[in-house]
């Protein structure tokens, strides 16, 4: 299979200095700092095919940013191998970064006091973009990201959403084949989020750009990603299409039944009652053992049903489940 990114047994070790509290502790760590080692990333392997949009998710401190930094050549792994477009970023950083676009949602690469367009001109020179290609590319980016209204405004006067659009355009100017987005929608309003998600879909569809996205916003994941990789405590805990991960982690579904009059016997062999509120009853059932329609049919035989609805587990439940079960080291 063709891959853009190939990661094998990636390990990143950190050394941390422990600080003690109080005056005595300050003096003590001043003289004898205590150092301990731990693995921020602990044996991660995966590969990504061209044109995928992958959500790389995990709780804070799970090792997401560290992995991204290793993939982009900023950090070198303690052990393990990385190939981006067939090249190791550690062996030939300059060749790899030409093919990458990187956006850190919390840090801008734009110059605060300059107009947005001026930062772009600098990037044009840094990446040696051919003038014609630059003009065409900028025209497309301006159109899709709607930059025209603020391309001549100093960056410090931009709203967060405008700045983020500017940052994404800056990362896409040199037409990278892989785009890394670290928290691209953090702190944005619904409109700006929508614009950015549309843009990601668009470039993925029209240019086949591979996108790796880290985020805490699971709506991003649900709307964009065909596949998610979940890490926790430096380890890869799930990797696959969203649907199957949800299915695997939360095999239960809920059937909410509302009766029009009280009934004596609520039990059924196919599902368990997990909650009851007046005439409203929540049934939990296994997707594998019975389908919703069969269960409804069985229940309607014995109960005076007024209203009925099926609740699918969502990404958020699934992810919370993953974090919970893999929280301990």
């Amino acid at each position, binding site marked *: 299979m063709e891959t853009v990114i190939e990661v094998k047994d990636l390990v990143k070790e950190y050394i941390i200095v422990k*600080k003690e509290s*109080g*005056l005595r502790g*300050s*003096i003590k*760590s*001043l003289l004898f700092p205590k150092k301990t080692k731990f693995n921020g990333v602990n044996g991660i392997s995966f590969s990504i095919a061209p044109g995928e949009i992958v959500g790389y998710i995990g709780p804070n401190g799970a090792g997401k940013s560290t992995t991204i930094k290793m993939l982009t050549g900023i950090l070198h792994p303690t052990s393990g191998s990385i190939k981006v477009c067939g090249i190791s970023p550690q062996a030939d950083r300059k060749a790899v970064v030409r093919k990458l676009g990187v956006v850190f949602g919390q840090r801008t690469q734009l110059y605060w006091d300059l107009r947005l367009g001026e930062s772009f001109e600098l990037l044009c020179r840094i990446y040696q973009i051919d003038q014609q290609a630059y003009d065409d590319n900028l025209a497309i980016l301006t159109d899709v990201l709607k930059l025209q209204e603020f391309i001549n405004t100093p960056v410090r006067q931009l709203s967060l959403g405008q700045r983020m659009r500017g940052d994404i355009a800056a990362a896409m100017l040199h037409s990278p084949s892989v785009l890394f987005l670290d928290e691209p929608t953090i702190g944005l309003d619904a409109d700006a989020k929508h614009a950015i998600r549309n843009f990601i879909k668009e470039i993925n569809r029209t240019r086949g750009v591979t996108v790796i996205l880290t985020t805490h916003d699971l709506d991003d994941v649900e709307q964009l990603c065909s596949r998610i990789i979940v890490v926790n405590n430096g380890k890869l805990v799930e990797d696959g299409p969203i649907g199957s991960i949800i299915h695997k982690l939360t095999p239960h579904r809920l059937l909410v039944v509302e009766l029009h009059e009280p009934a004596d016997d609520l039990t059924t062999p196919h599902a368990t009652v997990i909650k009851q509120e007046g005439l409203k009853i929540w049934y939990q059932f296994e997707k594998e053992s019975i389908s919703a329609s069969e269960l409804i049919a069985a229940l309607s035989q014995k109960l005076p049903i007024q209203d009925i609805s099926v609740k699918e587990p969502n990404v958020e439940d699934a992810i919370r489940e993953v974090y919970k079960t893999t929280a301990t080291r």
Partner: protein
Amino acid sequence: MLQAYWYITKMKLLVNLTYRFEVFTSVATNLILMLASVFLWQTAYKGGSGSVESLSLQDITTYTILSIIISTIFVCDVQNTIYYKIREGQIVTDFYRPIPLFACYLAEDIGEMLSSLLNRALPLVVFASIFFGIPWPASFGSFLLFLPSCLLSYAILWLLSALIGLIAFWVMELGNMGNVKDAIVRVLSGSIVPLWFFPESVQTVSKFLPFQYTYQTPLGIYIGNTSMSEALTSMAVQAVWIAVLYLILAAGWARTKKKTLIQGG
């Protein structure tokens, strides 16, 4: 109320003790400055008559060492604190604290002063003693007068710094005027070269400025270049300057506060 100030002081002290790296480099910087200055004086005195303006090489060495040591203790960050807080727009939150703004900053500076005494001044005293012998005061009496005079000096320096901080409320765009003031103080306080060596005319003018009462006065007392009665007179002048500067600060602060609260920082 005093407890609140002590808490601020203590927190600043604790925070400062954790900056290991900064402490090492600060001691090293001041050590270089001290060595270079003493060598300069040694070269100036070399082969000469022994004492100039009734100051021997030993006197001027002690003067220089002490000057650098007390400069590490006299922490007047208030001008920078105010400047940066105004620039970052954080000053408003300090307005809403239940305790007066300047008292708060003074408490912080005192906390830093205490930590500097431990981790900056003390190592310098040790190094100075190793390189040039212990810089003893001229007499026990002069040491006893030196301490209160130092406190008065600090009060003058801190008030000057606070006044510069006030300027920032009015003309923030001009940059940190504290740097300008520091450059002037360094020369006219006699912290590098005692004013006794300056031309007569400069000395006369300087008598009517607050600067020489910040470094030269306590240091002159310490090395015994100032007689007992002169010392007491100088300290009285120090006290007068404190009163004058305090009044200016209080008046200026009242106006600044009104302006800031109206314009919303």
